[in-house]
């Protein structure tokens, strides 16, 4: 796949490129939003990795221009140093497919990129039974089997769970979820969605230990993603320390 990396910070851009190339994608690097816009006139990219904070046009402005042009369908992954929930929402609402707060965790980055590219390529499977890891969804009977055992879900819970799995790793807005699962006419209190998500999470064991996480994107919505076993540097350090530490006194 062809990817574009737009970042004025060379170190970040290099890391992103190495991660993308490590995953088998080719990569063009640009240092400003204007460069991307002009390059898009004669290039097509399967993915744009865009830094929010750049001199000149910032990431959100570039994103808005992108979404208005003929290349509006290009998937965009935002990178940002801004850790605020509000900033995340701004990025998503401007049309980013996903966002990652710096510093990059390689495993997370790879997982998100794969999810975006897979989604872009995917034809919505219409098979009567769909499998996602240990879960199999039977559309006709609206039943879910987890590790071969049937899990009892209500119709709405089934629809919600299937929506999450079909949009794995994608941040889903509350309003979009409500519209997709309950229909446009629904006039529900916001607790309804939270309560259903909570039920689905409990019934399907969507917990980090079982390999899937269903987590909130604050002030925006929810995201279902694969739990990645992050090998953090501090964690490694701790392991290292532990080896040398004397056993704790009883």
């Amino acid at each position, binding site marked *: 796949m062809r990817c574009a990396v737009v970042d004025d*910070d060379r*170190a*970040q851009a*290099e*890391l992103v490129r*190495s*991660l993308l190339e490590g995953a088998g994608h080719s990569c063009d690097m640009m240092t400003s939003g204007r460069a991307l816009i002009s390059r898009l006139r004669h290039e097509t990219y399967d993915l744009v990795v865009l830094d929010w*904070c750049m001199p000149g046009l910032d990431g959100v402005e570039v994103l808005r221009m992108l979404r208005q042009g003929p290349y509006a369908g290009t998937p965009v992954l935002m990178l940002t*140093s*801004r*850790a*605020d*929930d509000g900033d995340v929402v701004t990025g998503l609402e401007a049309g980013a497919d996903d966002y990652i707060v*710096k*510093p*990059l965790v*390689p495993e997370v980055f790879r997982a998100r990129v794969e999810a975006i590219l897979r989604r872009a390529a995917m034809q919505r499977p219409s098979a009567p039974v769909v499998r996602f890891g240990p879960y199999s969804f039977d559309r006709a009977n609206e039943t879910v089997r987890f590790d071969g055992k049937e899990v009892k879900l209500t119709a709405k819970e089934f629809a919600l769970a299937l929506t999450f799995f079909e949009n794995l790793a994608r941040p889903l807005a509350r309003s979009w979820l409500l519209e997709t699962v309950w229909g446009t006419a629904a006039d529900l209190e*916001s*607790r309804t969605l*939270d*309560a259903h*998500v*909570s039920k689905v*999470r409990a019934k399907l064991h969507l*917990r*980090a*230990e079982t390999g899937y*996480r269903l*987590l*909130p994107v*604050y*002030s925006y919505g929810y995201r279902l993603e694969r*739990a*990645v*076993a*992050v*090998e*953090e*540097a*501090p*964690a*490694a*350090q*701790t*392991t*290292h*320390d532990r080896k040398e*530490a*004397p056993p*704790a*006194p009883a």
Partner: protein
Amino acid sequence: MRPELRPLAEGGGRSAPRAAVRHHAPPAARRGLLFEWIGLLIGAVVAVALATWTRPIERLDNLLYDAALRLNPRTPSADIQIVAIDNRSLQALGEWPWPRRRHAELIDRLRAAGARVIGYDVLFLEPAADPADDRALAEAIRRAGNVVLPYLVEVPGKDGRASEVLRPVGALVAAGPALGHAGLRPERDGVLRAIERLSRADGTPVPHFIEAVDARARGARLAAGPPPDGARLFGRRNVRIRFAPLPGGYGHASFVDVLEGRTPREFLAGRIILVGATGSGLGDRFATPVSGDAATMAGVELLANALDGARSDDVIRVAPLPAQLAFALVPVLALMAGLLLLRPRTNLWIGAGLGLLVLAAAAGLVMAGWWFPPANALVALALLFPLWGWRRLDFANRYMATELEALAGEGGFLRGEREVPVGDPVARQVALMHGAIEDVRNLKRFIAESLDSLPDAALVTDLDGRVLIANEVARALFAPYRAGDLEGQPLAAVLGALAPALDGGEDEVSDIAARIRRGLLPSPEPREWTLDDGRVLDVRLAFLSDDTRAPLGWIVRLADITRLRETERQREEALKLLTHDMRSPQASILALLGTEGRALPRDLADRLARYARQTLDLADQYVQFARAGTVTPTLAPMDLADALVDAVDDLWPQARSRGIRVETALPEGEALVMGDRALLTRAIHNLLGNALKYGGRGTVETGIRLDGGEALLFVRDHGQGIAEADLARVWEPFHRLAPAEGQPAESGAGLGLPFVKRVVARHGGRVFVDSRPGEGATFGFAIPLAGRDG
């Protein structure tokens, strides 16, 4: 930080109803006035009832009746003809009384002329000097066969008997005339309006002369004759005569003309003939409603009127008492209702209209044959005005006196107890009033000075938005933009002076003006106006109400918060520096280590990465801690268990890499609280993170219990625990525990737990910690559960 300014009045209702804005008397006063009105109403009804019964102003009624009657005269019937014993007959036939032979001759003449009935209104009570005369008359009566003779009933009779009947001479009675009593008694004012109808105690009527004549004319015979002597008799005058106008009336023929055959036959044939005295000197004359001041009416003429009425049933009946009472009460009650509900001027018109209506109704009813005395109603209507005025004034006076006494007795808000002179009530009231006015003056001054000493600009307006008071700061604030006094100006104009210096000022000002006009309480969120010179004003609008919460006016306060905003801006910039500008280079360092840094020795790279991460952590923690203290959390109903699960999943990688099992105990139902999910998740994250860092190996237990209206979240580890001396300080910012002997120092700024404390405090909850050295520690917090429907 948002300024913690208290609203000037509780904004309980968002909308102050405009209808309630007009000033009414206090409820107690209204009730008192209502009692006065009820008293007057009862008095009026009783007085009207008594007056209807006793008729104290009968004379006025009579005047009105006579006038009404003159407006509605009858047309005399040609059936009735009077043969008058007039002056001319007396001149021709000599002095009265005439010999009875002459009457016998007249009766013969009338019989010969073909009279239908002969009502002979001459009393023949004593035997004639010559018995032959009586015989001749008796013969004539017998021959005619249609003669009616009068007799008298005297009440009381002689020798103490109830009555005495004076009949015609026995010889005449034997001749078989019809008999009827011919008593005519005028009313108390000497005017005769009705023939008095007599009846006996058992109700048997005693027929009157005209009834006897009427019966004969119809060819009937009366069953009842004269009553026996000494019978108790009752008289009623409730059927009044509708008189024919005077002069004119009924046809007259002179006695002497009839006697001598000069009267044309057609005047007499087939008619009812009444024979009676009209001549002056014969004394038989009465005052009647139609006879005016001077003239009187002869008895026989009066009988003709009565007879005519009886024959055509064209009479005026006096209405029964209950109907009279109703007739008098209706206008009185209508006016009373008006007095209670309408304005005095309107009531004056209503009173006059009601009076005219009563008069017109009475006159109309007379025309229809009924008499309803209107005088009682008229007098009552006229009296109600001054009476009601007096009661109201008296009440107002008493009320004011009571209120002033109470005010004087209350003692001072700004003064001590006041001395009130004892004795003359007027002097006392004047003193009280004087004191009250002085109090008001002092209070006004006090308010003005209080407002002047405020640090913020304040404008007090009435309900229509007119500025009543502007304090010194306000005057100084508006001075550069507007010349002249602020007091008395419309608020919209005053605030409008700022509009040119204000971003979006026109809209803001017109919005406030519109809210005041509609009586809407402005939204509780404060408005901020930034002037073009950089000053920032915090604008608040509050409603003033009296002690019954009825609206009185508005207070507009404009606080200069320029410095506050400046400080806030600087702090926000500092935080932005931390969140973004300091994070970026650290992220770049980590990125470098991930690419070119791989050439470095592994140990060095790891340590560099660790320091970069620590810096990031510190910045993140500090920003979160600072924000938790200032930004108002957005509270929404949420399940605390969701936040706990999020936090557990967040930390799952760390737990796994340290080989620690996290056991989560969730409650059966939802732990519904009003919370900010992001803040609470971060708080739980911090507690769990600490447990993982300091909790040693094995398990960490966490969970939520619902207990007494609280959701109680705990995190228990089995590490070294915390020394008792340190327990109290763990929630303090930048406090870090010394690592247990031999343990490595963990990274952190000592802001994790203070953040938890701040967040929990913002949710109205409390934090707790329990630990014994060597046995691990339990950290947690409790926040109130949301109401079931919340």
